[in-house]
């Protein structure tokens, strides 16, 4: 009887939605608190993605098209992504894994939405790059336009075809299929936006790089020095602010990279197609392995 009572009391103890929920909320907030701390600490400690890279833009001169790899699959993408291995219409090299696509809506003011695509921008020389970029852009836009027409005809296949060219795939849990099948216009804009952005970053890279002067022979003994500066660029190219995310520990090195950033100001303006007002970019300065 006692036992029964006990069980009864434990299990059916109180209507208690309230105390349960109280307890639950407490635990939830604890969890959130810990996560918050973890995230903020994330900004201080060196950046190391705990997960495989989700976006990789490689500016190397490679024009090979290894074709679609199955690399995109490895991230547990199980939603409707029957990627048909149709031949890519555009000559793009695919490198790695994108994640799910976020609808191209600017939900928060000032922060651009980020499209993830698998487009790799082959870059041999700076001068040529823009041509390459433009060509790729054209191919892609035409390809996607072509798809749209295909889509109109064969709705059932549309997801697959689109995946071929863009390579974007959905991941579990999110109704990615829905958005992918949605507004093609938006997604197309999304693709070219990212391409132009990569090209822009290449220019930024070049501009800042050309201003970095450092007699690195003096720092040979100090080993691998690296510093990261995060800059905010305004649409017209002006650097709004810059701050050290990570200092190298060597004043000479740090001063030289700081000068490099500000001497490159103002940077070139954003490409037309990239409509954000401000962009944030991290520049990692390192001393490459010195060949004695």
């Amino acid at each position: 009887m006692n036992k029964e009572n006990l069980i009864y009391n434990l299990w059916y103890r109180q209507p208690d939605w309230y105390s349960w929920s109280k307890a639950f909320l407490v635990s939830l907030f604890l969890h959130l608190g810990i996560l918050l701390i973890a995230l903020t600490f994330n900004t201080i400690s060196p950046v190391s993605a705990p997960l495989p890279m989700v976006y990789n833009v490689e500016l190397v001169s490679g024009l090979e098209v290894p074709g679609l790899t199955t690399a995109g699959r490895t991230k547990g993408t199980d939603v409707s992504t029957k990627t048909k291995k149709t031949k890519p219409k555009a000559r793009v090299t695919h490198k790695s894994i994108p994640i799910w696509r976020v609808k191209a809506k600017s939900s928060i003011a000032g922060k651009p939405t980020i499209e993830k695509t698998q487009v790799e921008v082959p870059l041999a020389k700076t001068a040529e790059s823009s041509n390459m970029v433009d060509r790729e852009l054209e191919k892609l836009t035409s390809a996607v336009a072509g798809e749209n027409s295909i889509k109109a005809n064969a709705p059932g296949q549309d997801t697959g075809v689109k995946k071929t060219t863009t390579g974007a795939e959905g991941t579990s849990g999110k109704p990615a299929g829905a958005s992918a099948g949605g507004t093609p216009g938006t997604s197309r804009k999304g693709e070219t936006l990212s391409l132009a952005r990569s090209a822009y970053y290449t220019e930024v890279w070049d501009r800042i790089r050309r201003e970095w002067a450092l007699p690195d022979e003096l720092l040979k003994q100090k080993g691998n020095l690296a510093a990261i500066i995060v800059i905010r660029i305004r649409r017209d190219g002006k650097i709004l602010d810059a701050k050290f995310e990570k200092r190298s520990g060597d004043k000479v090195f740090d001063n030289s990279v700081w000068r490099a950033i500000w001497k490159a100001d103002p940077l070139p303006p954003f490409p037309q197609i990239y409509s954000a007002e401000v962009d944030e970019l991290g520049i990692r300065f390192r001393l490459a392995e010195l060949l004695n």
Partner: protein
Amino acid sequence: MKKTQWNLSVTLIYALVFIFFMTKPLFAARYYIDITSPYFKRIPVAIPEFKILSKGRTLEDRALTEKFKKNLPEVLIHDLEFCGLFRILSPRGFLVDPQKMGVKTGEINFKNWRIQGTDLLVRGAFHVINNTLILELRLFDVVKAKMMVGRAYEAPSEDFRSVIHRFSQEIYKALTGKPGIFLTKIAFVNKIGKKKHLFICDFDGENVQQIIKKGETILSPEWSPDGKKLAYVSIEDMGPALFMADLEQGTARRLCSYRGLNIAPAWNPKKNLLAVTLSVHGNPEIYTIDLNGRVQKRLTKFWGIDVAGSWSPDGRYLAFVSNSPGNPQIYILDTETMEKRRLTFSGNYNTDPSWSPTGEWIAYASLSRDGTNIFRIKPDGTDLQQLTANSGRNEHPSWSPDGRMIVFSSNRTGKQRLWVMFADGGQQKQLTFLSGSQSDPAWSPFMD
């Protein structure tokens, strides 16, 4: 209750799902780009003409002022270019008349300088009063718009070079944290006619002074580790003898003149002794002597020729020349274990070893059919590199105290002069232009 349970479970699931999403990056706010090496190995610096604070009252002062307007920045520019770390921007691009431009932090439009692409700016202002140079110099970080180093100097006008060298030293230290070579000297021998005399000049070949007036054939100057004394060889009637000059006091005294040879002094950087070659026992061997010339220890025992060379920076090892294989080669002697090991195997006439002050390299001269050339090799015998080629006779290498440069003698222009180059053989340029033949250079240690 079942319902509660159900709600609870749903909530928990939702919470778990929610938490699960927290660990997934949903979208990134920031990209990173990598820059893996500097584009320029030299820091750009702008050095406009110095500002004249007042023209000067006397005729001489005015003449000096006019001369210094050009000379002062020229010396500074030459210094900074010499050490290989700076790139001097051409003044033609400067927008403002330097005589009107400000000299202090508040007076300078740093934005304009930033646009020129320079990292650093030097502003100087001076005037000459009664033959005394009064000079202010400021080094600015153009991006930070801050002064990095500021100095005011007052010196007799004929010492203007050393004033500028002092500021170059400050600039170097501010940018690298290390001492530069701007205050160092080079001792050398200049042969005029049949006489060889001992001279000292500044690291840049200027300010040449003869320091030993007596004697007719002087060779092999060797600095003491504190830079205050010079050991050298003077050939007398009875043969070569060793002397020591005290530069502060301006005196010289005999160190040792044993029977036979007293040559090739090598000053130990850590102990008060020199390795020398004596033939007092019948054969040229290496001995160590103290600063009074008394023999401490005999280091070699070989019926052939052993000639002292150069100590390692820790004072333990001695690189020397021995012809035990039949021709002169360089050996290394561990003076603690008395073990000797051969260093050079390439070429059949290797002499003049000089151990770099960082300990990393041994430079030497190698004679071959193509002439004599300077090589460098690691003390363990690896990584042999040729530094000069196809240019006559290049001998007697001597390292700068920071181990970045080498001074040597070369007759590639038809006359024997002193030349300098970087430790990897880069940027060889002529240092001295005196008449006669310059040889036997020895780069001083860091001087204050």
